[in-house]
C-alpha cells in the first residue's frame, strides 16, 4: 500500500479494484502504479489479507490471466485508464507438482483390459480392476504387483478407496460388491449382493461426517443406488426412484447423495432414511458424469500435500478444516455432463434451477471433474477435445485440442495447475492451465486408455487400458 501511495504522484497510475473469485471486494478501489505486475499485486493482496505466510496468487482481468505489468496490459488491450480496472485474484496452491514426463514402469499382469485404476487417498497404494475379474494391488515403491485379489465373477468396473485409506471396495459387472483387506490382499467377508445389474460407480461417505469410514454408496445399471456398511457388511438403504440406469453417484460434503441417471435427471437423497430431497431436471439425454466442487478434498480426506498422517481422533477435525477451506463461503457446486453434449452447473443446496448451462462440446461429454481448488471444471468429450471452464461462473475458458480420438477420462494434479487426459487414441496428454497449452504428450500404450489417475501426492500418474498393461508415469 505504501508503494501505491508513493508512486501515485508520478502520474503513471491506474485505478484498480481487487476482488476475489466470488466477487467480494478487497478494500476499496485504489491507485496502483502501472509498472506493478503480478509479483507486486501478490504482495499487496497478502498485505491486505494479513496473511502471516505469504501465499501465491494469480490475477485475472476479464477472465484473462495477467502476466505482465498492468500498464503493458492496458496498452496492449486498449483499456481505458479512466475506468476502474477490476482485477480478480485467485489463490494458488502453496506446493507445486512436477509434471510427469516419462514412463517409469510398464507392469503386465492383468489378463484382460484394465478398466479402472485408483490411488489411495494418501497416494501410497494403488488398486486396479480389470476385465479378467481380478482386483490387483500394486507396490508403488518397487513398481511390481503386490496382490491379486480374486473374488469377483465378472469384469471389475470400479474400485474406490475410503477417504481414510483403510478400506477398498470394488464393484463388478455381475452386480456384487467386494471389500478387500489391503494389507493381505484377501477378500474381507463374502461379496455383498443386492444389485441386479452391473455397478457403475462407488462413492464413500466423507471422512469429516463420520470417522472411521463405514458407509459408501454404489450406483447400478438396474436403476438403484444402495448405501452399504462396510463393517456390518450389509446394505442399509436402497435408493430407488430412477427409472433407468444410474450412471454415477457422489456423496456430497453436506451429507447428501447425488445420483445422475440415464433417465435425464439428477436426484438428491438424504442419507439417514434414504428420502428423496430434490430432483434436478434439465438435461435432454443421459447424465453421464457428476462432479462436486469439493470432490477432490472429499476423496483425500485428511491427507494433504504435506503427507502427514493423523491419528484417528484428529482425522475428522483435519478433514473438516480442509473441506471448509476448499468450500469457502459459497455453497457446494455440482456439475453434470450429459449425452446431450452440454453440461449444467448447479448449486443444488440453493436452487433447483441450474446456475449455468455449459455449451460448446460437439459430442457427448463423458467425464467432468472439478479441479482440487474448485476453481476450474475440466470436461472430457467424445469430440476429441478437453474443455476448461471457470468453476465458479461456468464461463468457457479454453478448449484443449490434440487428441485424435475420443477422450475418455481426465484427472487433475493436486495443485490444480495441470490436467491429465486419457484417450482412445492410446495416449495420455498433460495440459497446463496457466498457459492453456499442451505440456506433455505421453505415448506408450498400445491401445485405448480406459482409466487414468494422478496420485494425490503428485508423484505418479497411473494409466490402464485395453492393452492390458498398467503404466506408471513419473516426473
Amino acid at each position, binding site marked *: 500500500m505504501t508503494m501505491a501511495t508513493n508512486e501515485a504522484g508520478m502520474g503513471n497510475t491506474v485505478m484498480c479494484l481487487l476482488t476475489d473469485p466470488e466477487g467480494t471486494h478487497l478494500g476499496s478501489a485504489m491507485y496502483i502504479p502501472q509498472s506493478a505486475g503480478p509479483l507486486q499485486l501478490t504482495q499487496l493482496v497478502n498485505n491486505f489479507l494479513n496473511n502471516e505466510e505469504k501465499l501465491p496468487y494469480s490475477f485475472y482481468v476479464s477472465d484473462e490471466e495477467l502476466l505482465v505489468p498492468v500498464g503493458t496490459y492496458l496498452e496492449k488491450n486498449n483499456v481505458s485508464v479512466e475506468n476502474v480496472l477490476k482485477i480478480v485474484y485467485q489463490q494458488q496452491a502453496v506446493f507445486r507438482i512436477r509434471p510427469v514426463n516419462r514412463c517409469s514402469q510398464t507392469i503386465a499382469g492383468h489378463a484382460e*483390459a484394465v478398466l479402472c485404476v485408483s490411488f489411495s487417498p494418501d497416494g501410497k497404494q494403488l488398486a486396479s480392476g480389470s476385465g*479378467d475379474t481380478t482386483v490387483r494391488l500394486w507396490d508403488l515403491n518397487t513398481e511390481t504387483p503386490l496382490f491379486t485379489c480374486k473374488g469377483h*465373477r465378472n469384469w471389475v468396473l470400479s474400485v474406490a478407496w475410503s477417504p481414510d485409506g483403510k478400506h477398498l471396495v470394488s464393484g463388478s459387472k*455381475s452386480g456384487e460388491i467386494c471389500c478387500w483387506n489391503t494389507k493381505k490382499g484377501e477378500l474381507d467377508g463374502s461379496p455383498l449382493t443386492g444389485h441386479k445389474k452391473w455397478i457403475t460407480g462407488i462413492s464413500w461417505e466423507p471422512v469429516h461426517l463420520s470417522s472411521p469410514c463405514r458407509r459408501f454408496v454404489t450406483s447400478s445399471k438396474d436403476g438403484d443406488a444402495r448405501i452399504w456398511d462396510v463393517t456390518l457388511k450389509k446394505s442399509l438403504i436402497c435408493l430407488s426412484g430412477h427409472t433407468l440406469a444410474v450412471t454415477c453417484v457422489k456423496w456430497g460434503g453436506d451429507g447428501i447423495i447425488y445420483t445422475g441417471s440415464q433417465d435425464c435427471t439428477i436426484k438428491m437423497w438424504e442419507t439417514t432414511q434414504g428420502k428423496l430431497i430434490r430432483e434436478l431436471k434439465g438435461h435432454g439425454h443421459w447424465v453421464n458424469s457428476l462432479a462436486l466442487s469439493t470432490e477432490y478434498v472429499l476423496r483425500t480426506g485428511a491427507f494433504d500435500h504435506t503427507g502427514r498422517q493423523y491419528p484417528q481422533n484428529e482425522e475428522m477435525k483435519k478433514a473438516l478444516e480442509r473441506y471448509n477451506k476448499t468450500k469457502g463461503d459459497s455453497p457446494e457446486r455440482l456439475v453434470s455432463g450429459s449425452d446431450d453434449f452440454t453440461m449444467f452447473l448447479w448449486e443444488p443446496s440453493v436452487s433447483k434451477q441450474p446456475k449455468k448451462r455449459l455449451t460448446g462440446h460437439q459430442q457427448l461429454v463423458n467425464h467432468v471433474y472439478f479441479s482440487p481448488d474448485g476453481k476450474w471444471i475440466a470436461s472430457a468429450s467424445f469430440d476429441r477435445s478437453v474443455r476448461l471452464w471457470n468453476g465458479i461462473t461456468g464461463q468457457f475458458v479454453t478448449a484443449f485440442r490434440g487428441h*485424435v480420438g475420443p477422450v475418455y477420462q481426465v484427472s487433475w494434479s493436486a495443485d490444480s495447475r495441470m490436467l491429465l487426459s486419457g484417450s482412445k487414441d*492410446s495416449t495420455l496428454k498433460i495440459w497446463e492451465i496457466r498457459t492453456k497449452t499442451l505440456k506433455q504428450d505421453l505415448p506408450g500404450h498400445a491401445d*485405448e486408455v480406459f*482409466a487414468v489417475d494422478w496420485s494425490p501426492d503428485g508423484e505418479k500418474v497411473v494409466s490402464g487400458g485395453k492393452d492390458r498393461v498398467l503404466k506408471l508415469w513419473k516426473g
Partner: protein
Amino acid sequence: MAQGDYMDEHKKKYGRRFDHDERERKKKARDVHKHSKMAQKSIGIKGKMIAKKNYSEKALMKRTLKMHEESLSRRKADENVDEGALPAYLIDREKTSRAKVLSNTIKQKRKEKAGKWEVPLPKVRPVAEEEMFRVIRSGKRKTKQWKRMVTKATFVGPGFTRKPPKYERFIRPSGLRFTKAHVTHPELKCTFCLEIIGIKKNPNGPMYTSLGVMTRGTIIEVNVSELGLVTPSGKVVWGKYAQVTNNPELDGCINAVLLV
C-alpha cells in the same frame, strides 16, 4: 369336382355315419398295436426301415419332452465372463466404432524391427513384356512401332497430364485406371473401399512400379485415415501398404489385403 372324388361328394351330400368319430378313435387306438406287431414281425430291409423310423420318432419325442421340462424348471444361469472388457461408461454405447480399432500387437513391432514384411502372396506369376504391353503402330503409313499400350490396370496420380503424342511412349488407357481399392483388414475381417495413394512395388520389375501398373501381388499404398488407426505415439496413421490379391485387369476392381 374331380371325377374320382365320389367319397367327398357322398360325404357332402349325406354326411358321415353317426358312429364315424367313434370308429376313427378306435381305429387309431388299435393302430399302435397293429404297428408294433408289424414292426416285430417284419424282417429284412422292411424291418430295418421301420426300426429306423421308430427310432427317429422316439428320439424326437424325447428331445421335445426334455425341452418342455427345461422351460419349466428354474435354474440360475451361470454367467460367462465375456471377452473384450469395457469400462462402465462404454458398456451401454454402441459398439460400431470398435471394429475399426487397430489391434496393435507385438508381432507388428517385431516385423518392423526385422524390416521385412511377410506378404500374403509371396510368389507371383511372371508377366512377360508381350503380355503387359501392346504394340501400337503409328506414323502416316503405320510403320513405326515404338508406342506401347499398357494392358493391365494402372494407377495414375491425380496431377497427371498426358505427354504430347510424339513423346508418349507408354499409353495408360483411362478405362483401366483405378483410384480406389477394396482393402481387407486381415485381423478385423472387414473390408473398406480406400483411396490408393501410390504404388510401392510391382514384383515384375521397377519399370512397372514407375508406370503404376497393378498386377496380382503388387504392393500399393492406401489411405487408411478413415479407419482411425493410431500409431503407438497417438498420431493418426494415414498411409498403409496393401497387397493386390486379384487380377484387376480381368475383374474390373482391385482387391487387396492390408499388411499389418
